């Protein structure tokens, strides 16, 4: 048994971390956050593309470097730690995965190479406004090669070149690939609690689109893409949670009250011990998820849900208790604490909240036990 990343994977992780530490210190997400004219950091995206990060898990035959998912997980953790304001999750975890899973050979050839080189940014459009979309409630339709209706909020919807859209087809739900720069597409930025990651409402009015996978399989494909993406999102969340813990522990060692570092008070010590414990539980579940993802194991649905649930809760807890540890300065705009607090919430809502994934987890256990 060897439950650890290999030396090469660790080296890749360190390389990513070092690159992001220099290219993407916290002034970078803050700038995107505060400047509404900047939807993402082109520099950081370019740096990630430069180190071939989007190509990590794309097979060489489609223009990728074919490292695999353990490598991609390592990169995702560092993207999360740095709060990188880039369309990495939309383009890599969602659009790339959807095409890898459901695309025809032609579609893979056409789109994956562009995704691998960063020439194109992809995204995935499911939500249709506040509330859950269900297989029966889809209002965006796909018929005769055209899309009709509105998706919102779509992550990176304002900057993506194309989107994979979950739509109601003529014979059931389907995935449709649409060029967002083409005809029949209008987009409008949507403000969220985390403006360092841009979102948009996209309205399709007869926008030409192509099927990805077969009609009727859309909802199932979406679930399978989300199972895989859940682990990558969880790694991002873990990176963020870990950054919060470091920030809080550092602050508590240096900040004095009553003549002693606040980190010497058990109220703070035990709080941060609890953050650490949750982070480590999440890390363990995530690494297991990474293994399941990399080997396409039968355990994937359970492992994905456990990773997702644990990481949502770890990051939410770490980001709020980081603010609390900082005291007054922690709830000011100028402190970086809230950048994590906001990102944590945004990520907790992306691809379904904890309550959705808890239910998926038990359903997966039921299926396993019935088998």
């Amino acid at each position, binding site marked *: 048994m060897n439950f650890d990343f290999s030396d090469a994977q660790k080296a890749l992780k360190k390389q990513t971390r070092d690159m992001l530490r220099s290219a993407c210190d916290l002034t970078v997400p803050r700038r995107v956050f505060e400047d509404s004219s900047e939807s993402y950091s082109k520099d950081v995206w370019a740096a990630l593309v430069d180190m071939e990060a989007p190509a990590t898990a794309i097979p060489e035959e489609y223009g990728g470097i074919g490292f695999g998912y353990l490598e991609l997980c390592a990169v995702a953790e560092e993207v999360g730690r740095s709060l990188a304001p880039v369309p990495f999750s939309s383009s890599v975890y969602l659009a790339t995965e959807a095409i890898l899973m459901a695309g025809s050979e032609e579609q893979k050839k056409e789109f994956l190479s562009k995704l691998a080189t960063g020439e194109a940014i992809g995204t995935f459009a499911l939500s249709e406004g506040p509330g*859950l979309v269900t297989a029966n409630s889809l209002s965006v339709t796909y018929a005769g090669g055209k899309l009709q209706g509105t998706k919102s909020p779509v992550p990176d919807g304002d900057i993506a070149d194309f989107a994979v859209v979950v739509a109601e087809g003529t014979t059931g739900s389907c995935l449709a690939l649409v060029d967002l720069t083409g005809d029949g597409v209008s987009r409008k930025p949507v403000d969220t609690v985390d403006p360092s990651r841009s979102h948009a409402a996209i309205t399709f009015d007869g926008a030409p689109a192509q099927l990805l996978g077969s009609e009727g399989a859309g909802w199932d494909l979406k679930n399978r893409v989300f199972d895989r993406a859940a682990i990558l999102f969880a790694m991002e969340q873990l990176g963020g949670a870990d950054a919060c813990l470091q920030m809080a522990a550092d602050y508590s060692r240096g900040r*004095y009250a009553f003549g002693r570092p606040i980190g010497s008070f058990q109220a703070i010590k035990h709080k941060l011990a609890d953050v650490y414990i949750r982070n480590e539980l999440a890390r363990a579940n995530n690494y297991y998820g990474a293994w399941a993802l990399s080997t396409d194991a039968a355990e994937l649905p359970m492992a994905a849900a456990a990773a997702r649930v644990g990481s949502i809760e770890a990051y939410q807890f770490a980001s*709020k208790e980081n603010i609390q540890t900082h005291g*007054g300065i922690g709830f000011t705009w100028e402190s970086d604490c809230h950048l994590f607090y906001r990102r944590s919430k945004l990520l907790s809502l992306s691809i379904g909240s904890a309550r959705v994934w808890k239910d998926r987890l038990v359903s997966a256990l039921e299926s396993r036990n019935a088998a």
Partner: protein
Amino acid sequence: MDFNDTPQQAAFRTEVRSWLEANAERKVEGKRGLNRRIDSEKGLAIAKVWQAKKAAAGYACLGFPEEYGGQGRPLFDQIVYDQEEEQFDVPRSFFAIGLGMCAPTMMTYATEEQKQRHIPPMVSGEEVWCQLFSEPSAGSDLAGLGTRAVQDGDDWVINGQKVWTSGAHYSDWGILVTRHDRSLAKHKGLTFFFLDMKSPGVEVRPIKQISGASDFNEVYFTNVRIPDSQRLGGVGDGWTVSLTTLMNERLAVGGAPPPDAMDLFKLAASTQLEDGEPALADRAVREKVADWYVQAEGLRHIRSRALTALSRGEAPGPEASISKVVSAPKLQDISAYGMDLLDIGGSIIGDEAPADSAFQNGYLYAPGLRIAGGTDEILRNIIAERVLGLPGDIRVDRDKPFEDIPTGR
């Protein structure tokens, strides 16, 4: 037990209600009204008009002695008034800190002449007051403050920085605690003043919070001169005077803004889940609603019990600490959960946000609420020590000269 008014209270309630009917509009559900977040200068002007109207009718500060603009009424009458006023769309009060904290301090320590001069304009809203206590290095550990006061003839010269000062930018006057001697023990070297906020050398800078609002300020003092006649209490009595102010602060803090349990109930009743059923049909959602409802109701009844005790002239208990330590995390959790029910659409904020952004705003506002006016951690210490009689923390700073206390720098 009896939830009805006494005959006297009932009569007063009727009187107040009809005055309010004549002078204000009732609140309308779903309409934002005058209490919406508006630019403070404009808000202040509206609030001053309303406060003057209340003062003219005798309702501005019912419990204060008549000679200072009050009516010397029992505390419960103020509560009756507040309960009635809450149902009307009146502007938010810019005077709570002045009337709730500065005035009681002035009443206890100022000269008769100073009280005559300063309290009536506070009551009528003509002059606004603020409280200058916390510093960047002295938050939970308030007595660790370092703003210096040096005596120079009949004046004191002040240098230093205060922070978290609500309303400093529109205040006319402030109460201020300073350190006059760094060689004395922490709690011994403090001296207390009130000052004209327009004095030369006072600079106010707003602090922007996570939520984007600026409810607080930094206040810088550069060679600000305060006449010795504006000292409250003796030289070195600053901590004792501060405790008078803070005892009154604990009365003022406590509750949290919405969303509360019933807001989540309503959201859940109107939000569909996976199966097309309303979220409120989901047992997991129901349990959450129930848990928070039980907390919310518990707090509501704790307030009623406290009011009962106050109306009998008993000292306020730990109710405000309980309320704050429960309601702030509750706000944070309810807000996050409400957003979860809305899925990724729950992240939308601003004009197009669901449920008037209530849950999103609560999420961003709650972290501050868990800290301002006493962190969760400090409040638990207070409850453990003052109510349960548990021993204090080990103190390494208590008897040292202030200048020798470790600061980590």
